[in-house]
């Protein structure tokens, strides 16, 4: 009886410990985003009075920060730039990675496996090694300060990762499906286009989300190639242009960070398991 009660107490204690541990981690990871949200609606005078308790609204909340962000900064323009680059890069990525992923999965045999790994390894080559020669190439091409420079360079990391991901995806499709289509008179290419692509919508959607989020996250190349405020993407515009001014409008800055990051984060979150699966392909069986 008392042993059972003791067991329950231990279990309860362990449950509380577990919850407490997770709570600490959640505070660590999510606090900055909560802080962005609350700061976005505070008046500047509230933020800049040291005596105020920063965790509560000492003055009534305001929408002024959002108005300043959208009307008096280039924020909307940056969002638009980011979307533009994202869409074009995603299109290029699909055109290159879908056929390559399929060919590596089905047509190239043993040799394809090696090539697949080689392609994945290029994803690990960091921009910090490449951005110096890239800067010179971009300036020789006359693409400095142009969003097209980003369109040209971003597939260098979206294509390797997405090819690798699609290769795994296509491998999981039963060969019988294509063979049946080929017996029906389709060529290999016809079978790929009419049978394999339509049933791979989920994989292709994953690739679209990834290349879009990877583009939104990129920082180093955009910082290197672009120096005109109007041509920034959002991930560079906010930290360099908004933060670096002499007057800090923390409310507007935080609003800008929150608006551009949380929707992307939620979208990415839906697909993150596939991202992990791509990384660990082979290491997890």
């Amino acid at each position, binding site marked *: 009886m008392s042993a059972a009660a003791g067991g329950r107490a231990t279990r309860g204690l362990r449950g509380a410990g*577990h919850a407490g541990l997770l709570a600490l*981690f959640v505070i*660590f*990871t*999510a606090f900055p*985003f909560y*802080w962005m949200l609350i700061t976005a609606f505070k008046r500047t005078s509230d933020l800049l009075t040291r005596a105020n*308790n*920063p965790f509560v609204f000492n003055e009534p909340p305001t929408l002024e920060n959002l108005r300043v962000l959208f009307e008096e900064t280039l924020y909307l323009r940056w969002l638009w730039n980011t979307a533009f680059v994202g869409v074009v890069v995603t299109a290029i990525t699909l*055109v*290159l990675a879908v*056929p*390559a992923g*399929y*060919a590596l999965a089905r*047509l190239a045999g043993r040799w394809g*496996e090696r*090539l697949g*790994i080689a*392609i994945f390894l290029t994803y*690990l*080559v*960091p921009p*910090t*090694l*490449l*951005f*110096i*020669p890239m*800067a*010179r*190439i971009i*300036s020789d091409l006359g693409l400095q300060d142009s969003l097209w420079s980003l369109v040209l360079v971003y597939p260098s990391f979206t294509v*390797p990762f997405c090819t690798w991901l699609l290769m795994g995806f296509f491998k999981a499709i039963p060969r019988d499906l294509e063979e049946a289509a080929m017996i029906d*008179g389709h*060529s*290999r*290419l016809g079978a790929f286009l009419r049978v394999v692509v339509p049933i791979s919508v989920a994989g292709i959607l994953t690739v679209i989300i990834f290349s879009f989020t990877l583009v939104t996250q990129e*920082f180093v190349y955009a910082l*290197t190639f672009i120096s005109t405020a109007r041509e920034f993407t959002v991930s560079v515009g906010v*930290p360099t242009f908004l*933060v670096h001014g002499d007057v800090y409008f*923390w409310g507007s*800055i*935080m609003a800008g*960070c929150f608006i*551009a*990051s949380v929707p*992307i*984060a939620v979208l990415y*979150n839906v697909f*993150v*398991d596939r991202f*992990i*699966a791509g*990384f660990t392909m*082979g*290491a*997890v*069986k």
Partner: protein
Amino acid sequence: MSRGVATAAPEARVGPAARPRVWSALIDRPEWLGSLMIAPAVLYIVLVVGVPFFLALYYSLSDITMGSRTLGFVGLDNFASVVRTSKFKTALWNTFVFAISAQVAVMVLANILALALIKDFRGKWLVRLLILLPWVAPISLGTIGWLWILDSTYSVLNWTLEALGFVPEYGGFMWLGVPHLAMGSVVAIHVWRILPLATVIILAGLTSIPHDIHDAAQVDGAGFWRHTFQITLPLIRPILLVAGLFGLVLAFTDMIVIFVLTRGGPYDTTQVLASLAFFTGIQAGDLAEGAAIAVFLFPLLVAVAILFLRVARRTEVV
């Protein structure tokens, strides 16, 4: 021509076979079709990764600047002059301090967090989303949140410490303004950013362990520590290696957190090779010297690539 006839004829149903002979011979042979489908992607990668990669090596041996029209070959001069500067020595040392301390902390915390997350509990999806936020949100924007949290005058951390009486009024820390503290801060924020990725990778490994292994350990009377350190962790070693290697590459080569928070300051105490390469090569326009600094990252990447290939081979990738 013949194709037009074929399409018009009622046998058009066998269309795919009626293409011009050479083309169809190419398309129907798997190895040719395969090469044709891979070629564009490989070509693109060679042009935008391969070429700049070798250019980086070449630039590091030249005297190129942003505006120069000619390019002279200077051998190892750049390396010789770079290595002598105290800025470089500081950055090299900082790179190792930054990368290794951040990555050790990430691996320890990620293992703890992954073990805590493997249990089922209510609201797990929400906890997972909140823990993943730093990884899935654009890094530079998330880091600005910290810039405000660690502000020299209005830091919420200092306010809390003052309110709790740990520090006197106006006695709060200059989180990003004092040498050692600034390094501590950027390491902590880098950990914040990588922790979610390492956690979900390790979690994927943990969930792949078959249940009977855990059951058998239970039956044999293994306690929590023994179970964790002698059964669970050894089983997920390959995946720990993947998480560790990827994190290490990011920690050694990434400069976003440092650029946003300190720009290498105060007095270069948080300057790392990646950020120094940026400031030298791009902002000061000395491409050759910038490239020489960046190339110091190269041996490290080779080591990581080799390790990765080993893991891939041992587990017979895919």
